[in-house]
Each structure stands twice: as C-alpha cells, then as structure tokens.
C-alpha cells in the first residue's frame, strides 16, 4: 500500500484526484501543494473564508488551471473536456444566474445545453428535488438568496452528474432550506455520486458527511473523519460571543466556571474562551435566568474556526 493510499486525504475509489496542486495569482498563493482525492459519497471541503477552497474547486472543474501539479477527473484533466462536463455539475459560490429568467427557464436552459432529452420532465424533477416548484415561474431577480442557491443546485443536477461540486451551497439558506439541501446531498452521496461540498461552517459539514478535507491559507490542514478533526480542535479553546442586557453580570458569573478559560468584556459584548461549548451553552441559560438577563447573541466567533485551522496547519 502506498503512503497516498494510507493517507486520510485519499480514498481508494477516487473519481477526482488532486496531486501536488498549487495555484498562484501574481504574487498571491491561493493554493499550495495540496494533494487529496474524492470518491463516491459526500466529502466536505472545510476552511475559513480565503482558505483556497473556491480556487481548488474551480481547478477540479477545469475553470482554473493549476500553476503546478495535476488534477484528474475520471482519469483525465478536466479542462475543455466535453466528456468530463457530461458528468460534472458545479454550483458556484457567486450568484451565477440570469435574473431575467424564471427558475424553470434557467434549468431548462441548463438542460438544453447539457443535451438532456426530456427537457421539461427533467426540469420538473430537479425543481421538485430542491423544493422550488411553487416559485419556479417567478423571475429569479425576485428570489431570496436561499432560493437562488436552490435554483443553482437544480441547474447543476439537471443532467444527473456523477460528480457534483458545490461551493458554499448553503450560504443564505434558512434553517428549513438548509436541512432539506443537506438531506438531498446526503441522498446523492448514498446513491454513489461524488459530492464535494465546501463550507466554512463545521456544523454544516458535520451534518452532511463524516469525511472532511480541511484547508487554511491555501494548504491542506487536516483530512479524514470529522470526529478526529473535532478532537484535534478541542486542543484549543472556542471563542464565543455573547451579547446581553446585563453583560457585566453574566461575565462576572461565568468567570469562575471550570470550563471557562478566559472572559473579556467589550461594551455589551462578552468574548469567552472555552474548551467545552456544550457546558457553556447549558450554564449560560441558567445564569441568565438567575440574573433575569436577556441574551440577544450567543455564537461561536469565526476567528475561532480559523484559529483552529491555523493550529492544525502548524501541527502538520
């Protein structure tokens, strides 16, 4: 067995392979020496904003050529390969939709370009799959961000691609839409499609898959199952932002808690460092009740995830 085959960044039944890939734009290095592979099932590509996820995904689809290294999709370099594009679908991060079309017209356009034979039938199928049937005949320009995301997913699914590349597909979706899309991606993965989903939110990825490729600063930070990465992440504390009408009281009550490693008060905001997010979540409700305080915000700060990734990169 080769070292690549043993590495958690690689899978045995790969449909997409990335070997020593780097990409730079002028002086800026967007992706640096990344090697990994993707196979049937859902793989999460995780990393903070600016980690190089989008650049990597665009290299997988051939939209961008690597400056170094190779990308192979179904055994060939994807750039300009019609036979690859018959089997790959992309949901780009940006709003790549025609606002003057309806969702039905948009997916119909995608179907015609993809050579789908039953255009109307397939358009109905994918619109149903993303729960856009009711709004399908309204102009996309009138849609919310979440509806536009689902429309892009429908267009990417129209030719039933073997490989589906999704760049932050849950951005802007509400919790119900998010749950539905996550279920859809899981079903596609279970049906044998290679589904590569990027996200900067670990919890989202965790709900979709056990297999994660984590990137930061253009480098591969970690790969493998989420639990292992999660354990690695608990080596350093989470940072949580809490906002309340009695921030000082809350901060005073929490400062002595066993799981709290640091408390910083800034106006009405409390920044807490903890290794035990669950205990903090449980206790904060009790403390707020005791103080008769109202909590308006409780969320892990983005920098927390980023710092964890940086930590993972340093450890490698």
């Amino acid at each position, binding site marked *: 067995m080769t070292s690549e085959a043993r590495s958690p960044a690689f899978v045995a039944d790969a449909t997409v392979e990335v070997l020593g890939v780097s990409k730079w*734009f002028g002086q800026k290095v967007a992706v640096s020496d990344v090697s990994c592979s993707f196979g049937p099932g859902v793989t999460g590509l995780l990393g903070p904003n600016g980690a190089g996820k989008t*650049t990597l995904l*665009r290299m997988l*689809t*051939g*939209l*961008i*050529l690597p400056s170094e290294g190779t990308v192979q999709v179904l055994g060939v370099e994807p*750039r*300009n390969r*019609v*036979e690859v*594009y*018959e089997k*790959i*679908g*992309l949901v*780009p991060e*940006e*709003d*790549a*939709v*025609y606002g*003057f*079309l309806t969702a039905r017209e948009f997916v119909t*356009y*995608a179907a*015609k*370009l*993809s*050579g789908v034979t039953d255009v109307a039938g397939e358009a109905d199928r994918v619109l149903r799959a993303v729960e856009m049937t009711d709004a399908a005949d309204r102009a996309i320009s009138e849609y919310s961000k979440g509806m536009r995301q689902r429309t892009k997913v429908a*267009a990417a699914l129209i030719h039933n691609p073997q490989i589906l590349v999704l760049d932050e597909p849950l951005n802007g979706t509400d919790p119900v839409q998010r749950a539905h899309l996550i279920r859809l991606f899981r079903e596609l993965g279970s049906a044998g499609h290679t589904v590569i989903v990027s996200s900067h939110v670990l919890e989202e990825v965790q709900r979709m898959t056990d297999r994660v490729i984590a990137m930061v600063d253009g480098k591969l930070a970690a790969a493998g199952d989420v639990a292992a990465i999660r354990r690695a992440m608990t080596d350093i504390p989470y940072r949580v932002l809490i906002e309340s009408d009695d921030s000082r009281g809350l901060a005073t009550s929490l400062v002595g808690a066993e799981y709290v490693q640091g408390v910083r008060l800034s106006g009405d905001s409390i920044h807490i460092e903890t290794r035990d997010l669950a205990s903090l979540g449980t206790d904060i409700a009790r403390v707020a009740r005791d103080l008769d305080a109202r909590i308006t915000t409780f969320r892990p700060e983005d920098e927390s995830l980023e710092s964890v990734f940086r930590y993972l990169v340093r450890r490698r």
Partner: protein
Amino acid sequence: MSAIVTIVTMTFRQVLGVRRMIGLALLALAPAAIFLLSPGRIDPFVGVTIGLLFSVAVPVITLILASTVLGEERREGTLSFIVLRPIPRVSIAFAKLVAAVGSAFVLTGVGALAMAMVMGIRTDEFGYVVPFLVGSLVATLAYAGVFVPLGYVTERATIVGLAFVFIWESAVAGTIPGLAATSPWRIGFGALVGLAPDEFGAAVPDFALGTMQPGAGGAAVRVLVVIALALWLTTTILRKRDLA
C-alpha cells in the same frame, strides 16, 4: 447545433433589454433623420452616411452589444455556467459571435434601411436599399469580430473600443490610405460603394476608402478573414483563460 441555437437565443434575451434597445435605436435612426432634414440630394446623403451612419452609429451600436455577449457573462459569473456544459468551446464562441452580429444588425440594419428609404422617398431611387443593408451587415460583422473577444479580455471594452473607432479608424486609418482595410466600417462601406448606383461612388471622398477598391467581393473576403480570426481568437481565449 441545438446548443448553439440555445445560446444565441438566450444571448438575444440577455443583451436586447428594452431601455438599451430604445437608446440604440435612436442612435441607429439619427442619421436618416438628419439626412431627412438636410437640403440637397447626393452630397448630404454621402456625407451623413460616412460621417454618422457608418463611422459612428454602426461601430458604437456594435461595440455596446458585441462587447456584452461574453463580457457581461464573465463579469456576472454566468460564463462558468455555459463553459461547464458539454459543448465545444468553438461552438460557444461561434454562438456568441452570431448573437453579437444578430443583435447589432437588428439595429444597424434598420438604421441603414431607414437611410436608404429616405433617399428613395426623396428621389424615387430605391436602388440603395440592398447596398446599404449589405454594407451595414459587412461592417457589423467586422466590428463584432473585433469587439466580441475585446469584451471578454477587458472590463474597459467600451473605452478601448471607442479609442479604436475614434482614434485608430478616424485619425490614423483616415489619414494613411494604406490602412483603410484595418477599419471595419470602411470594409462595409467598400461593399456599399461597390453595389450602389454610380453617382454615389462618384461623390465619395478619398479618405473614406483609402487604397481599398470598392466591391462586395473584396469586402466579403476581408470580413471572412476577420470573422475567422475572431472565431479562432475567441475559442482560444475560452480554452486558455482561467475563469477565477
């Protein structure tokens, strides 16, 4: 073939917005309106044709529409939607060129037709209709060949295009007779002069055609070369250039 038709149809919908069309239609019809108000017969007809229709209206209309067909798709991110479908790049380039020419000729053709019709109404000579339509089509084709790839490679296509029209074509190609063939409107105008009644050709000043011989055959060869180069260049750009 059906993918090409699909892209052409969608591009028409994309570029032919109502407000844009009204503005460009006014520009296309302005030369005919000005000629209508001008006293005299052949001299103002030739002057307005050269000074406004062929050297201003046709290039500006074609610049605005042709630079949009790929440029807007690239800027708005929808180009990746097309290039990731199983369609050869040359088909995408061809479809975009057809859409650029088609959308622009809707207006430049109407402008040319209006000009010829006004002349016909004033003189009972309707022999200008076909020459004007052919001339404007040839010029539109040639400009589209320049402006479609230009719209893709730069976000300042309008400024660069206007510089090409008003500096290169007017100031440079207009003063150096040997460079007339590098001017798209002159290629179209050459076809027009070759097909029009003789009295039109006799009134054309030297700077309009330079050393080019008027005639539809020569114009057809030149415009075919421009379109072939444009198709090759656009295909190459689509194949080689990253869509970051």
